[in-house]
């Protein structure tokens, strides 16, 4: 993408702020309410399952701590990617973008492993209230991570083809806002689901 095209994309609102950033922050605000409702449902039904398996039978804290660490580090990779693109260092911008997506995929792999293990242990969406609310909440988060990974890989491919440059730093910043929000949601879920069993 040329500098002229990139400049044309930076539409500013009457506030003088980027319309795309306003849109992304508004979206993130709405996501707060979406996850708020799912977290509420999980906590309201917590401890009310009448048949097992129960959370304390299944949740593996050491394993999920590792995947949590992976997602936290992906946020570091994301800010490093943005900083590199903003200073025009596309070589490192591409490295950090790919690393962010890769760590996101590692997190998703961990979630697939966890879900598969739970299903083998007899927990499905229909088994009990824990199963229904747990899979809905963490599955919704996982779907957000998957969207983020696809978004980041798309940016990486654009950068590989020379269509993502310093002039498009805001495009990377907006993807970063989404990615960090996904991380922030997991920070809350890690505490509420896994540590406050």
């Amino acid at each position: 993408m040329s500098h002229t095209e990139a400049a044309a994309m930076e539409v500013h609102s009457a506030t003088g702020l980027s319309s795309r950033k306003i849109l992304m922050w508004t979206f993130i605000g709405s996501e707060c309410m979406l996850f708020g409702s799912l977290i509420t449902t999980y906590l309201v039904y917590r401890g009310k399952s009448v048949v097992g398996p129960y959370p304390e039978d299944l949740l593996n804290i050491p394993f999920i701590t590792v995947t949590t660490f992976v997602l936290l580090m992906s946020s570091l990779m994301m800010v490093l990617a943005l900083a590199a693109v903003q200073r025009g260092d596309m070589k490192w911008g591409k490295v950090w973008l790919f690393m962010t997506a890769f760590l996101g995929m590692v997190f998703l792999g961990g979630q697939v492993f966890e879900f598969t293990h739970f299903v083998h242990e007899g927990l499905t969406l229909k088994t009990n209230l824990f199963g229904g609310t747990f899979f809905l909440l963490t599955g919704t988060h996982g779907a957000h991570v998957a969207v983020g990974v696809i978004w980041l890989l798309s940016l990486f491919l654009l950068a590989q083809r020379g269509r993502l440059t310093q002039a498009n730093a805001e495009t990377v910043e907006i993807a970063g806002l989404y990615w960090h929000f996904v991380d922030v949601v997991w920070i809350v879920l890690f505490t509420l689901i896994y540590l406050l069993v």
Partner: protein
Amino acid sequence: MSNGPEHAHPSTRTYVLVAAILAVITAVEVAVFYLEALDPVLVPVLLTLSAAKFTMVVGLFMHLKFDARLFRALFIGPLFVAIAVMMAMFLMYGVFRG
């Protein structure tokens, strides 16, 4: 209406430091979870540590601390609405009674 100035973003060193602090807080959270002596204060301690991590990521990684006030309003407003609705539901369903 002024939306406030946008300040320079943190340096790479600051980002790495923040990530290290986040990792340490996560380790402390897990340690607190396993320490039976801390069971009576488990909930407030874990919620405080989680809130600290939340604030650091939103403020520093998402640059909300440095960005325009309008972005802060767009995030914090719905966040407070979500928390208020959660608290109302918890009271209604007796979550705080255990």
